[in-house]
């Protein structure tokens, strides 16, 4: 996302006759100062809420910040790389659990983003043409995204209950698909429960963005294709999907980052101790920090997570932008 935007911004500036407009007017000094003045509030707030705390977090990750020192964390002894060593020692239980949680998160994120994208795109394309009830349907589809996380997820908890939930009532009592009621909030199925909720909540965002992206595809392209004798399916494949590639690049990245870092959904769904099969890394780190009171280790794990996300984002943007750069410029 980052690179795209700055690239776009850079591209915008490169176009002739735009950038030199305001600059050559009188009162130059004020003008040079003005953009910084305009950015100042955003800058200060980002610094205060995101960047400085992050630096503090990184400092903490090098400290032995357990319950014995939290009261006066400035005096906590330096732990060097101990917290990191413990987190990545995959033969020891702490590292092993982190690795397991990380792998669960990766699998969950890939599936969730893939499904959200697929359903969102399919729905947006299906609703490109007018038909009766289209407006109503679109409003309905946006409801899961608009619902506050807690309200949405707690409803799913209600539905996933073993004894009294709707899911088992339908699967077991009414359709007789299972021999006995399944558990959804504990045990292995919890992964699928989490995935269902995440997709239910997330796909409308993909739908929304793709729908917006479709508006920017020039109508002439379709008309030309129709003249060439291309049917609807071919048009989708040859025009719609390729035209969406720029939108998809950003959409998939945003979905990936949000899903990977999502804390609210698993926390409301499972509480403080998530089942192993659905032990997402955000809750895992929360548990390491707040439940077992080892904030140093928790910070170290967060920093590792951040590094991972930085690398993934960088590689992703490098790979996906390569093919498109000439087209953009």
């Amino acid at each position: 996302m980052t690179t795209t935007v700055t690239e776009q911004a850079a591209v915008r500036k490169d176009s002739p006759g735009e950038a030199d407009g305001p600059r050559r007017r009188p009162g130059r000094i004020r003008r040079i100062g003005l953009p910084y003045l305009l950015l100042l509030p955003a800058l200060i707030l980002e610094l205060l809420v995101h960047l400085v705390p992050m630096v503090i977090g990184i400092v903490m990750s090098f400290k032995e910040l357990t319950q014995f020192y939290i009261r006066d964390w400035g005096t906590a002894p330096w732990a060097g790389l101990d917290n990191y060593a413990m987190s990545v020692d995959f033969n020891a239980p702490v590292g092993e659990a982190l690795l397991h949680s990380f792998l669960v998160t990766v699998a969950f994120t890939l599936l969730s983003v893939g499904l959200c994208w697929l359903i969102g795109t399919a729905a947006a394309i299906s609703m490109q043409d007018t038909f009766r009830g289209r407006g109503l349907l679109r409003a309905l589809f946006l409801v899961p995204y608009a619902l506050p996380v807690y309200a949405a997820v707690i409803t799913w908890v209600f539905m996933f209950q073993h004894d009294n939930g709707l899911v088992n009532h339908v699967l077991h009592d009414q359709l007789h698909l299972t021999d006995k009621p399944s558990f959804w909030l504990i045990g292995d199925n919890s992964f699928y429960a989490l995935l269902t909720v995440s997709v239910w909540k997330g796909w409308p965002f993909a739908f929304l963005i793709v729908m917006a992206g479709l508006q920017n595809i020039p109508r002439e392209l379709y008309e030309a294709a129709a003249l060439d004798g291309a049917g609807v399916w071919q048009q989708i494949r040859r025009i719609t999907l390729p035209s969406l590639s720029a939108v998809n690049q950003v959409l998939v990245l945003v979905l990936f980052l949000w899903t990977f870092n999502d804390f609210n959904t698993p926390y409301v769904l499972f509480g403080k101790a998530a089942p192993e099969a659905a032990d997402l890394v955000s809750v895992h780190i929360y548990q390491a920090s707040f439940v077992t009171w080892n904030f140093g280790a928790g910070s170290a794990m967060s920093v590792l997570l951040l590094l991972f996300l930085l690398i993934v984002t960088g590689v992703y943007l490098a790979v996906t932008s390569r093919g498109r750069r000439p087209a953009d410029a």
Partner: protein
Amino acid sequence: MPDLHRATPRSPMAPPRSFLWFRRIFLTLLSGFVLVPVYVMISSSLKPLADVSGTFRWLPSDLTIRPYIDIWSTVPLARYFVNSLIVAGAATVCSVVIAVFSAYAVSRYDFRGKRTFTVTVLSTQMFPGILFLLPLFLLYVNIGNATGIALFGSRGGLILTYLTFSLPFSIWMLIGYFDSVPRDLDEAALVDGCGPLGALFRIVVPAAIPGIVAVSVYSFMTAWGEVLFASVMTNDTTRTLAVGLQGYSTLNDVYWNQIMAASLVVSVPVVAGFLLLQRYLVAGLTAGAVK
């Protein structure tokens, strides 16, 4: 401005049968998937407690509005509601104003450090919230100790936190949107003697209303639903709805009907607002973010 309600037809020809059938089946299934939880939420909120604590039933044995009366006394929902309104409202207003300034600077001016600024602001989207929860908390406490400004536990601290959550996305979206507003318009305003801010507020902002509505909706939703920071940074008097709702699962019994009723009450403002403004949202995204 693209009008969504008048579709851009894909082709002059009628779509083939296979496509129509796919569409029918797919959209029906999808509607079911979306609707079931919504139906459960609504129907359960109208059931007596016995119905929701026993085997699931599709239809209430007895329709009752008791849950909607009881929710206000089981937890101080009204107070949480007011808190959430203040926090989300203020965070939205501040976030949008700040985003407008930043986006205007990035869109209209060429200056040193522009790239650093956009990269830095946008990369904050990557931070796991858990990494800066405790540090941010410590920072607020220390600012409070040093200056006497109470950030921790106050609505102000929460407003500050939430507005920065939505800021990156808002700035990013508005940059795209402002870029789509023709530059000649504000050039003309500048020539007419408006200052740069005059040009921003008289020309660019009015032309970018859909984009601004879109980011407002996004900011409001972000602040309305956040759980993690709210659970640590609020106390009894400043607690927001997202955290306050947990009060229904008390020591005693889980009042599912009240949870559902309260969830609905909490959702109605955002969902209604979102649906009313969705047209702007899509228009804003179309002209801004996804271009």
